[in-house]
């Protein structure tokens, strides 16, 4: 039920951002941008050198907030950061079914795997926007499956 998926580079510029309700795309962009502060805060709080996989998943970044357009929707933002400081932010609509934490983790894992596949492509320059169709299809599957 992800309504928006964003991949943010280390320097905090988006590598990939896509949302389902296209009419509110700007709103989602804004939400993701504000989430970055929370992500950075969580990263800095970790401190220790050892980065455990548990720490890659940041969990709920911000308490749910209502979706202005559709008041019934409850939007939750989840964060995930890789060891190379690439951040994944996902906005999910929890109005339909409450997604379990495990499901969110699995979604992030899939995102991470797809991201590494994109990285493996020699034609992809790190820092470019992600145009990979495989990545797109994976994200689409994640977004559509729930909606």
């Amino acid at each position: 039920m992800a309504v928006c998926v964003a991949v943010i580079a280390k320097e905090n510029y988006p590598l990939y951002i896509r949302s389902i309700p296209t009419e509110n795309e700007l709103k989602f962009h804004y939400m993701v941008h504000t989430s970055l502060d929370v992500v950075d805060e969580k990263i800095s709080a970790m401190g220790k050198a050892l980065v455990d996989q548990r720490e890659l998943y940041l969990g709920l970044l911000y308490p749910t907030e209502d979706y202005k357009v559709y008041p019934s929707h409850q939007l939750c933002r989840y964060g995930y950061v890789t060891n190379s400081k690439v951040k994944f932010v996902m906005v999910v609509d929890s109005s339909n079914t409450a997604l379990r934490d495990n499901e969110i983790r699995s979604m992030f894992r899939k995102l991470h795997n797809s991201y590494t596949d994109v990285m493996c492509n020699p034609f992809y320059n790190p820092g470019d926007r992600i145009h990979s169709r495989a990545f797109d299809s994976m994200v689409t599957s994640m977004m559509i499956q729930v909606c």
Partner: protein
Amino acid sequence: MEGLTLSDAEQKYYSDLFSYCDIESTKKVAANGRVLELFRAAQLPNDVVLQIMELCGATRLGYFGRSQFYIALKLVAVAQSGFPLRVESINTVKDLPLPRFVASKNEQESRHAASYSSDSENQGSYSGVIPPPPGRGQVKKGSVSHDTVQPRTSADQQEPASPVVSPQQSPPTSPHTWRKHSRHPSGGNSERPLAGPGPFWSPFGEAQSGSSAGDAVWSGHSPPPPQETWVSFADTPPTSTLLTMHPASVQDQTTVRTVASATAANEIRRQSSSYDDPWKITDEQRQYYVNQFKTIQPDLNGFIPGSAAKEFFTKSKLPILELSHIWELSDFDKDGALTLDEFCAAFHLVVARKNGYDLPEKLPESLMPKLIDLEDSADVGDQPGEVGYSGSPAEAPPSKSPSMPSLNQTWPELNQSSEDTAIVHPVPIRMTPSKIHMQEMELKRTGSDHTNPTSPLLVKTSDLSEESKINSSVKFASGNTVADGYSSSDSFTSDPEQIGNNVTHQRSHSGTSPDNTAPPPPPPRPQPSHSRSSSLDMNRTFAVTTGQQQAGVVAHPPAVPPRPQPSQAPGPVVHRPVDADGLITHTSTSPQQIPEQPNFADFSQFEVFAASNVNEEQDDEAEKHPEVLPVEKASDPASSLRVAKTDSKIEEKTAASVPANVSKGTTPLAPPPKPVRRRLKSEDELRPEVDEHTQKTGVLAAVLASQPSIPRSVGKDKKAIQASIRRNKENNTVLARLNSELQQQLKDVLEERISLEVQLEQLRPFSHL
């Protein structure tokens, strides 16, 4: 010279030819040599050529100006068409096909392609100027895009905008051009059906395409070898027939590609299109791909790294985005490198794209890696042993990183990193692009860390048991954990051989109970053996000095024939049920076994001592026995080991002195060991574990004392006793030194263990990715 009216197509064609001949880029004069070559390629008799030259006025002028050149070309067409050569014919003959030039000149042309291409670029893009017939309009030789004929089935003449770009200099393309060119002379001229050519083309028919193809040859950058191969199979007839089948093929023929590729690509396209499956790779194509693969990677079973592939395909001048997509499609196993199959698929996609085919969303079936045995991960060509490939661990290009399992096995200590690297590094594991294999890869990704710690431990366990059986004191268990060494060092102070035997036995047991959660123990360290060997030397020295019968470490068992072999693992257990507890405790705590061994080695002498001295040690033994007993029961590994040692001693003693004294399950300790034990006991006291040991030794002594008697010790000569005491003291000092050395080693090993644990912790998270 009468005026020359040229059709647009002719204009373009002639311009191309002129620029080809204009090697000096004068744009005014065509090089005589080149022109002559061109004329020779026209397959006209020499006299006709001479006549043409005369007619066009070149002989007058002595050079080929543009007008002369054009006239000459027109005359060539006239001659080729069979019309009489006359100046008037150049304008009177209608619907004259373009002059055809044989392939023979292609090689030369291809060699000069570079210069030609520059010229062609200057000549600009005709496509925009003329609504060229399919292919014809592609005379545009822009460096950026060499339009290949698009598979237009309709008479679309807006060809020039073809997005497909034929690489100028890419090797793959040049062969294409070469191929096409060679095909043209062989049979293309007359056989290319122009499905929907523009009005320009209808009169020209195939001949034009042939000639245009000839023009296209100029671009040839193809390296000689591919050229030859192309030529060889370009002669095969089927291509032309295939062309007829495919309407789009027309454009290929009509395309005049000045620079590399295009023709070949068209040919390939035609061929591919001729089949029902447009993505099928023909044999010629495949052969070509294989050859290209060889230029990058001589080993056909190897891999092309991502960087090399990137360079290679970038030459095709396709947009990076499309190349990226092609890579995604073709890199089946997502390892960042291309096998032969993957490379062929990628190449084929590039060719198709250049010919105007849209890239599929999914890899077509015919392009799927076929060599992979889906059931057998060890594919023919795809299984490299390379790990690096990954860069990360592997990345070694031709040899992809070894499979994860092998990597893990070869690096027992911390292998989790390999899994992590497999994810981020393109080369880590080379796996056949089979689904099953990919599943395995996923499984490996999810982590099989647990296998690592246990495997080395298990291995070590077997080693330990074997070693103990061998009863070679030198062999430390190399401790599954550092604790082993530590405990063994403690046990150092306990009785020699017997305990050593027990220790070895216990060591084996301890090996079997590794701490699975702990990091895999480091490989057997040579140092302990060295130290042991040093101790062995000293033992030998002692044996010499003491004049004792130096059975040697290995000969320990034989040195004490009457005694039950303490070296035999079951021996101590059998003889001493009381000690069995200690043994059990020992097994649970392996660490002390390493240090035990030096003692073990040293203890061999004590056996001899025991054989000789009985009286004095009796008391000591008796004292120590009770100590041993509590030691056995103690959970402290050191103490337990010591108990084992004392037990072994006791065993030996009883065997030597009173075999029947095995009552109580404790064999009498050899007299010689007694003083040593005492000495060791004192040393033990210096250490934290000492207390227990002293207690144990006291117990042992008590046990010994409790034993009925040790007749041997009774009747010993005092002098002999004193001598043995002296020897024992010497042994003590030696053993003490050994002990300190072992302590040092123990500390080092502990430090290593800590560092390894830290590494493990650091690497563990990756296993979850």
